């Protein structure tokens, strides 16, 4: 049997390209292009993990954006409400842990800061700079967000065990909407539509390759998100070619038949939920720190549709195709933002680009159900199968 290495080589070339891109690219819109790339990586994590859940395992969940939000809000709340201080404030709820006090800031909602201050701000103004408080480490927030995403994934996974197809889609959609509504309504804690500000990914700057970067430089978050994407793709690749991948696909095809052949379908259904929701939560947490604010608007259904569309246009049954689809579409959507004039009529592309995107999605679904990138990959990996079958049949007939 002939082995085809084209997809692997293309993969290595893509990784090398994105690893070198920030050093090669030097146009005036550097920060803007880097921002699109980071956002593209973020969507690539969502789309590829969703493709494992929906494309491989057949669990068409519309809650993925909700789990992304769980990750983002977990780290946001963690960094917003917890601080370490060497001195007690005596007004906040606080716990002595070793040498330090863990300060739990009281929620004040969205009020003018001159009227009400939270207990920590009051303490700080009393101390007048004599005490240095420490915020929570960002990486810990991201890890907690990831774990929280997994816990929510486990609960939802258990709840949808007996639901199939359309009911599962509706249930998970309900979950995401309830989460968004709750966050919007719980203004005292989540600050509602005002959103919660988060410390930047590298709030104190970072030195990389002998160069000191500030917290607003794009290169460090670029690589942070890029490595998170590579980590997720690595895990997905490993899962896909292990028996996990085989079993979840069997689950998608026929749950009862898989069970009759010895597959613990319950376990794999829950597992695939937990793993993919953790990825969505990790991406959400990191993106929230990169952007510096999270609001309930980030959890809109529109965002979910975007993720689904990216995966579908790339190819939902292959997580690499979904990831590439996400990055390409993020770039194309941004590039299409430039409005233009035709004979005195201004075409507002910020709106029309979504129409073009929708038409592309419909055309893909109608004419290329496997997406636009997956057929390319299949061409190289499975192109020989038909020839092989015919050859074998001919050989069998003549013997």
């Amino acid at each position, binding site marked *: 049997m002939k082995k085809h290495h084209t997809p692997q080589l293309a993969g290595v070339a893509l990784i090398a390209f994105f690893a070198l891109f920030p050093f090669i690219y030097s146009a005036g819109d550097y920060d803007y292009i880097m921002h699109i790339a980071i956002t593209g990586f973020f969507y690539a994590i969502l789309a590829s993990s969703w493709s494992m859940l929906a494309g491989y395992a057949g669990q068409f969940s519309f809650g993925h954006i909700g789990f992304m939000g769980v990750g983002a809000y977990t780290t946001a709340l963690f960094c917003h409400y917890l601080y370490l201080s060497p001195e007690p404030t005596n007004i906040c709820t606080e716990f002595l842990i070793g040498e330090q006090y863990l300060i739990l800031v009281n929620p004040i909602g969205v009020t003018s800061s001159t009227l009400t201050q939270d207990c920590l701000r009051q303490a700080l103004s009393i101390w007048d700079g004599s005490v240095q408080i420490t915020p929570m480490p960002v990486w810990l927030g991201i890890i907690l967000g990831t774990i929280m995403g997994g816990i929510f994934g486990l609960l939802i996974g258990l709840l949808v065990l007996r639901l199939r197809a359309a009911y599962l889609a509706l249930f998970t959609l309900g979950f995401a909407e309830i989460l968004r509504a709750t966050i919007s309504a719980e203004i005292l804690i989540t600050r509602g539509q005002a959103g919660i500000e988060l410390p930047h990914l590298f709030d104190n700057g970072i030195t990389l390759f002998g160069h000191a970067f500030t917290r607003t430089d794009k290169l460090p978050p670029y690589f942070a998100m890029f490595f998170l994407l590579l980590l997720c793709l690595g895990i997905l690749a490993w899962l896909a070619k292990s*028996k996990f991948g085989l079993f979840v*696909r069997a689950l998608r095809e026929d749950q009862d038949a898989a*069970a009759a052949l010895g597959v613990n379908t319950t376990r794999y259904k829950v597992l695939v939920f937990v793993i993919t929701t953790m990825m969505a939560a990790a991406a959400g947490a990191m993106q929230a720190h990169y952007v510096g604010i999270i609001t309930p608007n980030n959890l809109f259904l529109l965002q979910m549709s975007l993720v689904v569309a990216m995966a579908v246009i790339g190819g939902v049954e292959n997580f690499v195709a979904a990831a590439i689809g996400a990055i390409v579409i993020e770039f194309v959507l941004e590039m299409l933002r430039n409005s233009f004039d035709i004979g005195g009529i201004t075409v507002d592309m910020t709106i029309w680009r979504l129409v073009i995107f929708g038409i592309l999605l419909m055309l893909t679904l109608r004419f290329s159900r496997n997406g636009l990138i997956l057929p390319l990959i299949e061409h190289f990996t499975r192109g020989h199968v038909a020839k092989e079958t015919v050859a074998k049949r001919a050989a069998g007939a003549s013997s």
Partner: protein
Amino acid sequence: MTNLAVKGLNKRFGGLHVLKGVSFEIDGPELIGLIGPNGAGKTTLTNILDGAIKPNSGTVYLNKQRIDQLPPYEVARAGLGRTFQVTRSFRRMTVLENLFVPALALNRGHSREEIAQKALEVLEFLTIDHLRNEYAQALSGGQQKLLELGRLLMLDPEIVILDEPFAGVHPRLMEVIYRYIERVNGAGKAIILISHQMDSIFTLCRRLLVLNYGDLIADGIPDDVKRDPAVIEAYLGADEEESNGEQGGRAQS
């Protein structure tokens, strides 16, 4: 030695009493035919033995292990495998991948190479090895039936229940299925064969169970069963019409 002990199985679907205290026992590598008119409860009995549905009362022991409350995957691992009346292949997975599923689910510590080798041998035996890398959905109906048998060969259970393996199958493929039955039975495994094709049943089976709307009305060697007045009245006498009606029913499913 394989032992399956079924005691007093009752199953109701709402008001419908589908199995009425069914009891029988299988000892060793028997080849048993399970017959009965459409709606007699044969598939329901299969589903209960395989753990897919739970009985309202009664017990099933496989080699002294109680299996009637176990989930299907544990029943499969305990040594009972089945095919489905309406084929259920993993359509968008290749033929080889279909065979890997039970082999890896059992986790008997075989390497991937060993499993792949076994799979190829099985496919050759079933005469569909040229299709190994095709998606199962590219297979014909009859070939998909063979694929299901292939998966069972990989699972290699102590007892196999074949639900209508001959339905819609060309004589040439029938030959292959016959060889499959010989191979599995010859290897010391028990087989329960559900079929409306009386010639196959009488050629292959050394013992018959007759189910008639939930009642097990006969259990014995084919010659005795053939002459049993209750069986003749319920089933065999109406053989011609039965098989005609059955054709129609099959076309729907």
